[in-house]
Structures are given as C-alpha cells and as structure tokens.
C-alpha cells in the first residue's frame, strides 16, 4: 500500500513543545548515569599513562584485597603493547566509588616506555614505527590517496589567476556532557539488562549478546539482552555500541553477580570517548577573471590516532562545488585515541579546505565572495530531474541560489560587506559566508514503530529508537496524534528500549527519516484496523469512516463519535499495528516523497576583531537550512542553532592539545578545553527553508559544518589577513596580522 504524508496537516509543521521538557528541566529525567540499582557496584578503569609502552608486569593481587573490591577484570596482560595514553588496561568494581578509586591505585604495574609521536608534523616527517603493524609493517605514514579529474591540468593552465594557501583544523573532542558508560545487571534468568548512554539501543543489545554468547558459549540471544536508553546526555557520533567499558562493566557484573555502573570520568571521556580527526592542507585554485574557478588542487594530511582512517571525505574534495580537481590525502597514525564519527564526519574538514580559499581568491580578484560563489554553484542535474525531481542532484542550484538569497537578505549582506581589511579603527567588523551539504536519508536497517489503541481510547506508540535530545520522542507522538486526531500529550510513549522493535543507530541524521515514516505507517494502519473493528458497531462501512480532530466521523451519514466513544466499541478487543521503514521502502515509486536525502545549507557570520588584542567576537550568524518536510519547527530550529553553536566552538575555542614530551593530552578537562558560554554567543538567526514536497530529511548534522568556515571568512573580511587554522585564538589572529605587516 502506498505511503504518503497527510495533505491536510494539523500538527506536522507546527511548533510542538518537547514532551519530555519539564522532566528534563526539573532534573526528573533519569539518564544512564543516574541509574542506581540495589546492591550496585561502581567500576573504575586503569588506563595507560604512556603514549607507547609495553607492560612489563601487572599484579592486581593487592588491589583485590582492598576494602570493598568485588571483581577485577584484566583487559591487558604482561607483554602487551599499549599505543596511546588512556588505553584501557584493567577494570575493577567495588562497593562504592571511593573504594574503587583507592583499589585501582593499588594495582602494581611496570611499563617499558617506548618512543611515541603525537603531533602530525612529527609523525609525517619521521617514521620511527611508534604504532602497531599494518599490512605487516609498522608505518606512521600510510600511502597517500590520490585522484584527479580529466580537466584539471587544462583548468590550471587556463587560469588567469591562481591563489595558494595553507589551511587546517585540529583534532577536537566530542566532549559529551554525559560521559560514555552504562549500568549492567544480569538477571536470574541469565539475561542481561543495561542502561547505556548510547546512540544505538538495539545495536548495543546485539553487540553485547554476540560478545557474551561467543566468549562464554552462553545461550544469550539478542532478545535476552535489554538495552534501555530513556534519556541520553550527548553523543554527537561517539556513542555506538557498548564500547570496551560496556563489555567490561558487564564482565564485572557477571563476576560479582551484582549490578555494576561504569561511567567514564571527565579526563577519560575526553581522551578516550571520541574525537574528530584533524586535517591540514595546501590548497591552490585557478580561476578566470570573472571568478569562475577553473581548477582546484589540495594536498592534505591528518591523523585519526592509531587508526589509518582518512580524515577528510576524499571523494568530496572540493566540497559542494564541482571544480576540476587534483587531490591528495595522507593518513598519519599517531599515538592517540582512534577517531570516532563526529557530527557530519569529515565534512567540516572538507568545508575548511574548500571555503577559505574561495574568499582569498575573491579578494585577489576584487570580487564580492558571494558573487564568486553564485558563479561556481553546482548546476541542477536535468537527467536526475526527470526520474527524481525532488532529489538534491536535481535541485542543487535551485536550493543553494535560493538559500543564498535568503541568507543575504537576513544578514543585509549588501549593506555590510566591504573589501577585506578596508575598515578604519582598532576593532574591525567582518562578514563571511560558507556552504555545506549532507545526506540525511533513512537507513538500510529496518526501523519499526508500533501503535496500540485500547477500548478506553488510550493510545501507545512504542519504538526502540533513542532520543538523543533531537526531539524524536515528540516527533513520534505528534505524528501518531496527527493521524488519530489527538493531541501529542495524549500519546503514551514507550521509547528507547531494545525489545520494542527494530531500529538503527542514530548516526548520519538518519533517525527522523527512518522513524517518522514507520510511525506514519503504524498510526495509519492502527486507524484503519480501528475502523474495521468498530464500523459494524457504528452501523457504518469502514471506508466511510474518517478522523477529525478528536472524533471519528461518517461523512456520508453525517454522524460523528468522540474518540473515546468510538474506541469504546472495541469492547474487549484492542488494535495493534506495526509500521516499518527502510531506505528501500523510500525508493519505491508508490512511496516517493515520504523521506529523501540531500540538503544544502548556507551560513553567514559576522565578527568584531580587536586588532590590538586579537580577540574575535562573533556577533551574528544567519543559518539557512533545508531539510525537506519540517515535522516540528521548534525542535528543528533548536537543532540548527545548536549546530551553529558547536561550529562556533570549533571556530573560536576547541582544540585537543597534545604534549610532545609526555605524549598525553594537556587539556583533558573543561577549563582548558574550551567551550563557549552564553555570554560568548552571537545572535543566531535560523531560517528553515521548508520544502515539504521532498519528504522528511534528517538535520542533526548539516548545520555544524560550515560555521567555522563562515567565521574564518568573516575574520579575513575584517582584517584582510587569513588566519589559517582553527581555533581562531588571539595569538593566531595577531600572528596573521603581524605576517601581513600589522593593522594597515
């Protein structure tokens, strides 16, 4: 049966308050960190203090005898090699946290300290083999990825002007406020329950089931593992699966036969809980005199820690713009935690390596950088338009052009833009812009929602999916309420528990496009089942029944029944219907425009730069964002503004600083790993470019991507000098001014 959004929408598209708002604001919402079980033990991890070492000896005998210790689990053993400061060695659980902390200090361990490299530039130059073997060899530097388009050489040769620059962004940390971790409890039936801080409720349950049934030959199918995540205190891409601390907590709980809580402390959260990899590169562009770019070249490198992952989205360089290209990327392995997906993985890096040089080029050509961008936008794909008229490919030029127009009007770009560095005074105003893109389609994995209607008129929507703070819970309720003619508060929600049905992890902005259609289908099927069951009792044909606000109506008979009255005809029956969705469903012709993929996005930032102190203050950001059909504009705007703020933090404050000598991070905290507070915030103007005809698209990630590039370009516009690396600290701003010859 074909699926489609209702044409007349009462709730979808209206600002609906977050249903869990009061519980969260008044501290009543229970996060995984807040779970206290009877007889619960507290676990602590012992981590490597060295960036590279071999364990000479490991003896936990004394620790086991310490007061309150109930279980010890060794992750590593003597002879094992450790490759980063923070790597997990051993865990123990005690009756309280104080005892656990005392006991872990009583573990006797000796290390043979080995050479390490934690800085990209050191690891790039040297090859002293500080990392594990890969392909039989210990190499810090992996073979470069290289590619070029057919027209690159000609494009560069034809260029009337060329510009070069070096740009980069450092490693930054996810810094989730609720740290990673969980509470694990084994039941008398041999099943396992975990309260996990995770972005993947079902994935975590499956991973735990596989680990324990494999390791101990337990009869532990996934349906005997229950993962509960009612509330989640921030993930941003770093919280998929149980992680090592989750497995270890469950191991300790099994050993001690008691519930165990293991949440990372702040330093561990930062050094081991996830980071976005760095990217630095030389970029060169060639262009015609009218600003049309003829070729783009990038040679970049970055580190994802001990792993050899790319730190840019290689096939999307240049970013957004379809330039002729030559690209090279070198993956550098260093002695630091492995990167994790972070809100639009690698897109902020791609954006910086593309957007900064466009303003440098515009300056060289004496052009307004907005005009230069308009000249270089991708075109609409006319072939795609025939088969998929609502796809991003078919609409790229249309979407970006319109979004730039909207952003220009909201920011008063025409009045405010001036040639770079051409304003008088010590504190200088600047304005800059950048573009971004993202996917945000449903997942290949099945997502389900079940809607239950009972004879007393109560309605329950049940799903295993998690609400990370995006407002997914509210979306589920409001869609159900829309279809059944009720209010969102009337829908009882069973959310964030793995037995509730299939769902995928919340990554890639996929949750709303996966879950919203499943809810739509479940609620629609429940409505139809209700009609079928009660029609005879209403002396109507099921097909004559319809829903209006708060009632069931038979238009042909001109009769109506209140929702409660209608449901009461169920007698001792109930209605229960499950809907599912996948990317496969979304691609079926009969389901078109329910969910789709691909968004644009334009941001314009304004700054004031003090040329005497180097202090940058961002005063305003305009964010224009499309995401297809906007289900709840209230929480959607919050997502966009939140992305902008995270992007502003990247621009002005955030950097993981590694110490060359000790190999440790020197700022694994919140006083020197800086995040902005309310007084640091600019005015943020969010404009949702609503395109309901495209269906639902996720929006969690795209708004974070281009903010740092827009701010960097605004600083360039203010002072006429490029600050090449984020964060744009006073020191770096002053260095850029000095390189240019001061504030002239």
């Amino acid at each position, binding site marked *: 049966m074909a699926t489609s959004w209702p044409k007349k929408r009462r709730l979808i598209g209206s600002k609906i308050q977050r249903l869990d708002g009061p519980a969260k604001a008044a501290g009543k919402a229970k996060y995984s960190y807040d779970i206290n079980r009877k007889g619960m033990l507290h676990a602590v991890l012992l981590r490597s203090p060295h960036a590279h070492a071999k364990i000479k000896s490991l003896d936990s005998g004394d620790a086991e005898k310490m007061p309150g210790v109930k279980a010890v689990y060794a992750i590593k053993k003597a002879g094992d090699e450790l490759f980063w400061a923070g790597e997990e060695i051993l865990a123990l659980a005690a009756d309280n946290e104080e005892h656990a902390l005392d006991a872990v200090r009583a573990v006797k361990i000796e290390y043979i300290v080995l050479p390490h490299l934690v800085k990209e530039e050191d690891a790039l130059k040297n090859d002293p083999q500080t990392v594990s073997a890969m392909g039989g060899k210990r190499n810090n530097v992996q073979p470069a990825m290289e590619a070029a388009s057919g027209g690159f050489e000609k494009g560069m040769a034809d260029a009337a002007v060329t510009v070069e620059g070096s740009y980069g962004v450092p490693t930054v940390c996810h810094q989730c406020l609720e740290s990673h971790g969980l509470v694990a409890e084994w039941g008398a039936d041999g099943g396992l329950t975990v309260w996990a801080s995770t972005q993947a409720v079902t994935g975590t349950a499956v991973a735990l089931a596989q680990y324990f049934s494999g390791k101990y030959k337990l009869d532990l199918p996934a349906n005997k593992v229950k993962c509960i995540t009612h509330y989640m205190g921030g993930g941003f891409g770093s919280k998929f699966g149980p992680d090592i601390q989750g497995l270890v907590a469950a191991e300790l709980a099994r050993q001690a036969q008691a519930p165990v809580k293991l949440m990372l402390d702040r330093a561990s959260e930062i050094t081991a809980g996830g980071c976005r990899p760095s990217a630095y590169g030389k970029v060169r562009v060639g262009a015609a005199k009218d600003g049309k770019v003829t070729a783009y070249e990038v040679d970049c490198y970055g580190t994802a820690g001990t792993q050899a992952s790319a730190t840019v989205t290689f096939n999307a360089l240049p970013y957004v713009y379809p330039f002729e290209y030559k690209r090279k990327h070198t993956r550098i392995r260093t002695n630091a935690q492995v990167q994790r997906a972070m809100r639009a993985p690698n897109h902020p890096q791609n954006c910086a390596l593309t957007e900064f040089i466009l303003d440098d080029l515009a300056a060289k050509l004496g052009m307004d950088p907005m005009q230069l961008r308009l000249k270089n936008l991708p075109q609409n794909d006319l072939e795609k338009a025939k088969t998929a008229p609502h796809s991003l490919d078919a609409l790229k030029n249309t979407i970006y052009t319109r979004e730039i127009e909207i952003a220009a009007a909201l920011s008063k770009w025409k009045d405010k833009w001036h040639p770079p560095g051409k304003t008088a005074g010590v504190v200088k105003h600047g304005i800059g812009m950048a573009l971004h893109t993202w996917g945000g389609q449903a997942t290949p994995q099945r997502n389900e929602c079940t809607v239950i209607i009972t004879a007393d008129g109560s309605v329950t929507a049940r799903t295993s999916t998690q609400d990370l703070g995006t407002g997914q819970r509210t979306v589920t309720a409001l869609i159900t309420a829309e279809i059944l003619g009720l209010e969102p508060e009337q829908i009882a929600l069973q959310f964030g528990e793995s037995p509730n049905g299939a769902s995928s992890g919340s990554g890639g902005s996929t949750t709303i496009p996966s879950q919203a259609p499943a809810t739509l289908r479940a609620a629609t099927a429940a409505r139809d089942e209700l009609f079928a069951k009660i029609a005879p009792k209403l002396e109507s044909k099921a097909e004559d029944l319809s829903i209006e606000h708060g009632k069931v109506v038979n238009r042909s008979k001109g009769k109506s029944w209140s929702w409660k009255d209608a449901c009461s005809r169920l007698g001792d029956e109930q209605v229960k219907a499950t809907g599912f969705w996948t990317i496969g469903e979304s691609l079926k012709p009969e389901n078109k425009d329910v969910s789709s993929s691909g968004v644009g996005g334009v941001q314009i930032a304004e700054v004031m730069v003090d040329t005497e102190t180097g202090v940058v203050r961002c005063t305003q950001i305009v964010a224009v964002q499309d995401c297809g059909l906007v289900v709840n504009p209230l929480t959607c705007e919050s997502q966009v503004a939140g992305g902008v703020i995270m992007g502003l933090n990247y621009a002005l404050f955030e950097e993981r600083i590694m110490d060359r000598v000790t190999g440790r991070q020197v700022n694994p905290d919140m*006083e020197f790993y800086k*995040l902005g507070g309310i007084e640091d915030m600019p005015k943020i103007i969010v404009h949702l470019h609503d395109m309901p005809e495209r269906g639902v698209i996720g929006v969690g990630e795209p708004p974070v991507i281009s903010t740092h590039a827009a701010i960097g370009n605004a600083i360039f516009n203010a002072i006429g000098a490029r600050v090449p690396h984020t964060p744009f600290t006073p020191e770096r701003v002053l260095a850029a001014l000095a390189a240019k010859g001061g504030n002239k």
Partner: protein
Amino acid sequence: MNDTRERNHHKAGLSRRDFLRTSGAAAATAAALAEAPPALAEEAPAKIVAKAIGPEPIKLTLDVNDAAMTTHVEPRVTLLDALRNYLDVTGCKRVCDRGTCGACTVMVDGKPIYSCTMLALEAEGKKIKTAESLIDGGKLDAVPAAFAKHDAQQCGFCTPGFVVAMRAAFDKNPNATPAEIEEALSGNICRCGTYQQMRDAIAALCKNQRKGD
C-alpha cells in the same frame, strides 16, 4: 531548627567549623590529625581536643529539598557524590567534577554552588535545593517551565544546572535584566548549543517579572 546542636552531640558528627579545625583544609580530609593545627588552634578554646574524622564513613544528615536524608559517607565524599551516589538525588549531574561546567549546580542556603566543590559534611545543617525542588507534582516552577516552553534544552544533561543557577539569580534579584541573568549563567556550559533558546526563555522571564511588579 535543632540540627546544629544535635549534630555536635553526635559521635561522628562535626560542624563545619570543627571540621576545619581538624583537617585544616578541604584537600586534607583524609588526614587523621591528633591535634588542631597551630594556626587554627589559636582561635580555638584551649581545652578542645580535636577529633580525627575519617577515613571511615560518618553518619550524615542532609536537608535536601525540605526532606531530612541520612546516609553514611567518608568525609572525602563531595556533596554532589553524596546526593547522586548515596541519596539517589540525581538532578544535579556530574560532568567535569572540578568546578568548571556548572552541571552539578545546587542551591545551598539559597546560593548557587557547584556541588562537586563542596564536601557533603560541609553541607550539613544547610538547606540544599536541587532542580527537583522546582517541580511539585505536576506544577512546574516558572524557570524550568520557560526552558520547556522555549525549547532551551536538547540532550538536557546540563539543563538542571542552568535552571538552578537561573532560579537563584531571579531569587536574588527578581528585577534582573537579561544581561544580569546571562552573567549569572556564565559558570554553566552546554554542549548541544541551547543558548539561543535559553535567551528566549530569559527574555520571557524578565518580561514576566517586570509585569509582576
């Protein structure tokens, strides 16, 4: 209130003053001193022989959201950990655990403090209010209600700390301006980026307060 006298009669109970005489500073909680340190002893009556407390747990009664809550904790346990780990009061969150982020903010005798920087036994005899005190059955205080209405929260983990800090600021000055409220929140950090919506909540609250004059 009869708490101070009772506590001082209790075997393991100590007033904050006694505690300071005994251990000298918050950092030295586990130190077992036979006598008061000389510098502090000067002001102490000559006959008092200071008792060493800890490291074993002591009985502690805290006044949390108008309820007397009793537990046993080691003297080194912070107010935050006593509330969360021993009394199951979890509206105050542990994030940085070193006085930077404000997620653990509670009111102690009406003042907003980082509960991770106060020892639990220092809080004895004081009135402790957490975010949970701002909801009474279904009735929500104006501050958390404004957070909910204006969507000034996403993951919500920092939110109770912000709510308590803002409630304390309005209690101190009901006519506070938005700029003054922002200043009062400058010791709190949000990662999801809810400050724009928080400003909407602040604007509405300041306006309502003025109307109420």
